[in-house]
């Protein structure tokens, strides 16, 4: 089983396209497997005759596990050196995306499966997903994530036609046919697995530090209430939008919290794209990004916020919206717990948590009085920033929320 990305640990065989005795050529698609990110073709990395299928349809095979064996030309039976492209396409646009990350070496890469004389290095062409230049360009224009587009048939490259059909499906899905998902966005059944992998990786790899503070929300809550009383339903605000805007503005002065940790180093992001952790009704969560959140007027940001939350909950998000976030905000909303200690979503380097707004005793002008307050926490990557910077960042958010009309 080839590794199709750093987050993948195993996949389920969904179809065999060859049987023992079949002749295969390097590059043939021999099977399809289902991963958390969708169904992916498995290409064979050498030529020969299939001897044995080691995994049956429905079997979950760990990365590096044996899928099948084949007899290479003039050689004894060898494990099938099947490799498939990473599910994540290379970046299309200027906006940074998480990279597929390094692929751990696996036994199937070694030994007789390699053609004689071939270097033991990874074959990037074999791993690469076949996408035509025209398809790449069109996908970038349409904002279609190529990972959500499949070829007309296994083994073919993704063409501009495939991209345009995917775009039509996506457009149809957001319109009259909500039942048809536009992309292979992770569904509820595999959502848990995706979260499990990402969070395991996060806890395994990222040295988190945590800082927290309590923020008075009287002004912010009153601002929203007044605004909403004065505006029709289509123009109303949600406290969450204020929080996102405050985070985004505070990030302008905290670049070490905004970006990605990749290949052993921090890549700061010029764009501030705030992911909003959105709980799904059937369990799990998604964090669609609000792009350039620091630069959008609050009403616009609110509309966009409402839009992505709605679409996240109705499975209409585009993959790009999930991949674009440079930081994440996790807000518990009303009626929830007071404090959350969130875990960073790799390859991001920080996540901000907001608890529920609650009424608590608060010292105002030397006297204790009831006030609306909220706990803000920051989990950040210690490889990139230190607690002191994190603390300053939270205090900046606090200051911004005290003057909500300026957001």
């Amino acid at each position: 089983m080839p590794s199709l990305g750093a987050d993948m640990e195993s996949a389920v065989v969904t179809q065999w396209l060859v049987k023992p005795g079949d002749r295969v050529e390097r590059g043939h698609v021999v099977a399809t497997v289902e991963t958390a990110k969708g169904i992916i073709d498995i290409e064979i990395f050498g030529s020969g005759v299939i001897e044995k299928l080691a995994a049956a349809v429905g079997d979950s095979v760990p990365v590096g596990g044996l899928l099948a064996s084949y007899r290479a030309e003039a050689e004894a039976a060898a494990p099938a050196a099947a490799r498939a492209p990473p599910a994540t396409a290379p970046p299309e646009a200027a906006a940074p995306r998480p990279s597929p990350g390094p692929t751990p070496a696996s036994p199937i890469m070694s030994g007789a499966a390699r053609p004689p004389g071939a270097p033991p290095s990874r074959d990037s062409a074999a791993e690469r997903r076949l996408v035509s230049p025209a398809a790449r360009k069109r996908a970038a224009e349409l904002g279609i994530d190529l990972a959500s587009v499949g070829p007309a048939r296994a083994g073919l490259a993704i063409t501009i036609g495939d991209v345009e059909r995917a775009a039509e499906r996506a457009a149809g899905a957001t319109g009259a046919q909500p039942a048809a998902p536009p992309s292979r966005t992770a569904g509820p059944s595999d959502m848990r697995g995706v979260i499990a992998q990402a969070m395991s990786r996060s806890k395994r790899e990222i040295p988190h530090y945590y800082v927290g503070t309590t923020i008075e929300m009287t002004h912010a809550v009153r601002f929203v209430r007044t605004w909403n009383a004065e505006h029709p339903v289509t123009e109303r605000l949600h406290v969450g939008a204020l929080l996102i805007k405050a985070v985004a503005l505070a990030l302008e002065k905290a670049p070490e919290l905004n970006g990605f940790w990749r290949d052993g180093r921090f890549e700061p992001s010029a764009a501030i794209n705030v992911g909003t952790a959105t709980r799904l009704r059937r369990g799990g969560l998604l964090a669609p990004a609000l792009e350039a959140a620091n630069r959008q007027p609050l009403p616009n940001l609110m509309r966009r916020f409402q839009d992505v939350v709605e679409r996240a909950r109705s499975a209409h998000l585009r993959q790009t919206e999930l991949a674009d976030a440079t930081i994440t905000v996790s807000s518990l909303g009303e009626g929830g717990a007071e404090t959350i200690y969130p875990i960073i979503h790799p390859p991001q380097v920080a996540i901000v948590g907001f608890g529920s707004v609650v009424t608590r005793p608060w010292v105002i002008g030397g006297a204790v009085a009831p006030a609306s307050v909220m706990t803000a926490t920051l989990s950040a990557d210690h490889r990139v920033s230190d607690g002191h910077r994190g603390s300053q960042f939270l205090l900046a958010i606090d200051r911004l929320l005290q003057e909500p009309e300026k957001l």
Partner: protein
Amino acid sequence: MRTSYREALRAGLRDALRGDPRAFLLGEDVGRYGGCYAVSKGLLEEFGPERVRDTPLSESAFVGAAIGAALDGLKPIVEVMTVNFSLLCLDQIVNNAATIRHMSGGQFSVPVVIRMATGAGRQLAAQHSHSLENWYAHVPGLRVIAPATLDDARWMLAAALADPDPVVVFEHVLLYNVEGNLDPAIRSVDIDRAAIRRAGRDVTLVTYGGSLPKTLAAAATLAAEGVEAEVVDLRTLRPLDDDTILGSVRKTRRVVVVDEGWRSGSLAGEVVARIAEAAFYDLDAPPARVCSAEVPIPYAKHLEDAALPQPAQIVAAARGLLGS
């Protein structure tokens, strides 16, 4: 009007000799013999030995002499029997004809037309069958044209003679016997532009010269399968008409270049490179080439056929790009 490619060329020559007293034809056996491929048959009788001039087997001298005469303002039309023989006068074409205008700072033009037969298909083996159009198409200062249709055979010579610079004309040996009707509406052709010989939306087939009939046959086969191929006839191999080539590729997003030259260092390679440079993001599949096998063209029919681009290979290449 029913005619053959050979007769169409002859009609063009006759027009030239009648229409311009500066024009004259010279080459090996163009006079009494009537031309190796009988293109100039009958012209000696009509125009006399001064203007239909047999030469000794001295390619360098008579091609050089034509260049010298052109330097002095005449309009020589040289026939070199085959492109293989033209290697004997490569010096004159490349070092003199192509350079003198530039080397002289624009003082002299070389309005010579050099015709030569090219290509395989008549079992003439390796010293009479090669396609070296790209050798000439490589050279700045030359214009290289390849009439592939009756109308082009009929009218390209006039356009070539009107060009003040040296023009090399390639006539594929398999085309000489092609027969058909000239389009009476056509009285001249534009040698600056490639021609779309068949319109289509699914894949572009770029070709020239003797490969055009094969490519059109392939397009017909593809059409029967529901694949609409657009066939671009380059006509002018230098300068290439990038606009027409790229326009077609941008429409179909797939391209097969059919070239009887060998693949390595071929004109097909140049066409593909230009497409990659200028239309990379319009491509839906890697450009493909169908070229001759990299062997000296062999004598035996089955071997010769195997060495040359054939319609089936063109069809297969197009199918490959379409995944069909």
